[in-house]
């Protein structure tokens, strides 16, 4: 008790020395090159090309209100053998250390993805600086670096544009799937599930890549568009799903918050009726039949008729049930389509049926887990869809009908 004061003095002294010597991990904000998007491409035989889209803060915010003439971002690129080595080499180009803590999207080149992602994913999951919540995408038919070189309007940084576009489209349209790095990694690791990554393509005149005029035109000459899903087997890209199949996949995964289904009119194939699905419930059941699993998919949807071109009177219950039936068929078709493609074309269980089987029957799973993808392609899948059309917005009859009356 007597010399506690003294003790505190000594320890304060020690603390002060450390503090003075300290500051190992300190980085000032203006010493950071904040990377918001990253692209990884194949370069030559074995090397990778790492592209970092780095923010230029003054160009985005600041006193000039962002109307400066410099581009809002700058792309640093280096090639190397491993991602860590390459990232460090980047400092040769950039005056500041690249900071990846704010990464929003990671894009793999298609060629690179075909060879396997494993060699970069380990570093990304291990390094403490990477977050776990950025999106991943595969550049379809182009290089990842090209996608990062496109000027965009509306959002100042291309990365933000890429991120929010993916966010929105995966929610309201159902073709794309917003896959985060965490989902990707856990799907690759899991034995009962394969990975899926959304695709991104460049459309338009490639001359405008890396040109500021692109953002200045009302109709941008070159656009980044999300489309389709890339199917992986382990960490390697094996193929793409088309639009229908992608939607089918998303139905199974319950990824869709809402989407619209385009149906042909019962009487006239050329006229269309659109049902907007608002609520989607999905149940995957595994039933063991004769020691073999059978998958039952039960899907329940609720929707509204949002656009009807056919001449139907929706005040009649019959026409409603007709629409419901059509919706059922449509959804079932797209699901079966995607299941078929994956079972037979790619032999990759991206739906996670394997995990369901494991839960249902661990003993059986022990048997088949090592060649699950083979087993998967032979599993019967039953799909049952129950749709309900609740409302039809403000009008009960279609516009055409009302014109004719």
């Amino acid at each position, binding site marked *: 008790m007597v010399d506690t004061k003294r003790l505190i003095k000594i320890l304060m002294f*020690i603390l002060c020395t450390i503090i003075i010597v300290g500051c190992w991990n300190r980085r000032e904000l203006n010493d950071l090159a904040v990377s918001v998007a990253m692209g990884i491409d194949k370069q030559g035989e074995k090397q990778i090309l790492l592209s970092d889209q780095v923010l230029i803060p003054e160009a985005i915010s600041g006193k000039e209100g962002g109307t400066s003439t410099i581009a809002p971002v700058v792309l640093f690129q280096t090639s190397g053998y491993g991602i860590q080595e390459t990232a460090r080499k980047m400092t040769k180009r950039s005056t500041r250390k690249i900071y990846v803590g704010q990464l929003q999207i990671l894009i793999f080149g298609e060629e690179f993805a075909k060879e396997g992602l494993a060699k970069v994913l380990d570093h990304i999951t291990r390094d403490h600086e990477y977050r776990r919540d950025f999106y991943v995408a595969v550049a379809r038919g182009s290089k990842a670096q090209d996608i990062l070189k496109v000027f965009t309007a509306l959002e100042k940084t291309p990365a933000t544009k890429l991120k929010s576009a993916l966010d929105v489209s995966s929610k309201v349209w159902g073709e794309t799937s917003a896959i985060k790095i965490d989902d990707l990694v856990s799907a690759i690791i899991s034995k009962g599930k394969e990975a899926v990554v959304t695709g991104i393509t460049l459309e338009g005149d490639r001359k405008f890549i890396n040109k500021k005029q692109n953002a200045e035109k009302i109709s941008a000459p070159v656009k980044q568009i999300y489309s389709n899903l890339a199917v992986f087997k382990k960490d390697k890209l094996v193929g793409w799903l088309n639009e229908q199949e992608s939607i089918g996949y998303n139905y199974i995964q319950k990824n869709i918050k809402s989407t619209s289904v385009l149906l042909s009119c019962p009487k006239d194939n050329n006229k269309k009726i659109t049902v907007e699905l608002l609520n989607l419930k999905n149940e995957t059941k595994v039933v063991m039949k004769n020691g073999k699993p059978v998958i039952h998919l039960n899907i329940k949807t609720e929707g509204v008729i949002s656009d009807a071109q056919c001449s139907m009177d929706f005040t009649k219950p019959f026409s409603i049930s007709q629409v419901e039936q059509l919706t059922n068929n449509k959804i079932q078709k797209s699901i079966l389509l995607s299941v078929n493609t994956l079972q037979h074309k790619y032999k990759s269980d991206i739906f996670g049926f394997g995990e369901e089987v494991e839960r249902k029957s661990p003993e059986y799973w022990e048997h088949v887990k090592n060649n699950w993808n083979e087993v998967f392609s032979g599993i019967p899948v039953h799909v049952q869809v129950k749709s309900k059309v609740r409302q039809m917005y403000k009008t009960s009859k279609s516009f055409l009908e009302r014109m004719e009356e």
Partner: protein
Amino acid sequence: MAKKEKIESTQFRKLISLYIIGTSILLIPSILASEAKQDAWFSAIIGMSAGLLLVWLYHTLGSFFPGKTLVECNKEIFGKWLGTLLSFLMFMFSLILTTLVLRNLGDFLTSSMFPETPISAIHIVYLCIVAIGARYGISNIARTSDLFSPWIFSLFFIFVLLLIPKFEWKHIQPILAKGVTPVLHSSIPYIGFPFLELVLLLMIFPCVENPKKAGKAFFTGTLIGAFVLFTITLISIFVLGAESTASNIYASFELAKKIEIGEFIQRVEVIIALIWFITIFFKLIICFYITVFCLSQTLNLSDYRPLTLPMAMLLLPLSIIISPNISYLISFDTTVWPLYALTFGLVLPLILLGVAFMKKKFFSKNRPSQAE
């Protein structure tokens, strides 16, 4: 001087639960899930019940020698020389435990937040605080725990609440797919890790004001601590799945990374980590206090306080050399540590209790008392 210090039974309860939560909250989910996989929560329950049994043992021992610390019990039962030797071994046990706790903290910080900071710098900072705290005495530690524990528990509660939307209920299935063996097997290091270490708390057990309430506090404290660990294990499985839980060394930190509250508040993991620092701090300071106190009692010193600074000085290099890397530490924690802890946490108390019981039965009427 130190013996006059008193703590309340509620404070004792808090100290125990913080002591159990301490470093375990970081490491336990991964250790449990490495073998039991999705049944890790089951192992947590087994560990908890084993822990409660142990607490019953310690409590019996503690109330057998009212007002006596473990070291004093040793000396009373085994006589001066053997008792001193055993107490010294006990001291080594607590010293190694303290070192391990310190090292765990340093490893956690350097690997998750400050990779460039030398681990010794972090240790020095922590040792400084701990030395001051130990110097202030156990009652001050108890008061500090009074102040911090509402924060820790409420933040833990918020942490759980924020993770609920991320639950994937199906992660927990299938239940007991591989039978009970892996579950039992993985609960062994868990029993060794926080629960067998509880034996050291017999050093401060006599400080508690009301011995009757102290026993109850011992139980409830253990229960609370074990429940927190159980919750965190369960949540890790729910959110991360068994695979990720097992492969992430600091699974609960990984959990914290999953929290998002809207767009603005993300990546609160640092704040959650800070809460864990505080629990680790408590574990460390209790261990440190016990180590120093144990030594001073073993050598019959009048005061433990002069030993705090040199002990801190000694702990610093020890914590560096104690393990070459984290995987060594974890393998030690899961293989050797349970045995080592078993020696001091189960065998020694049992012998003590047995001998004491025999002595009481045969000699109680002949000898009035053994104390000097």
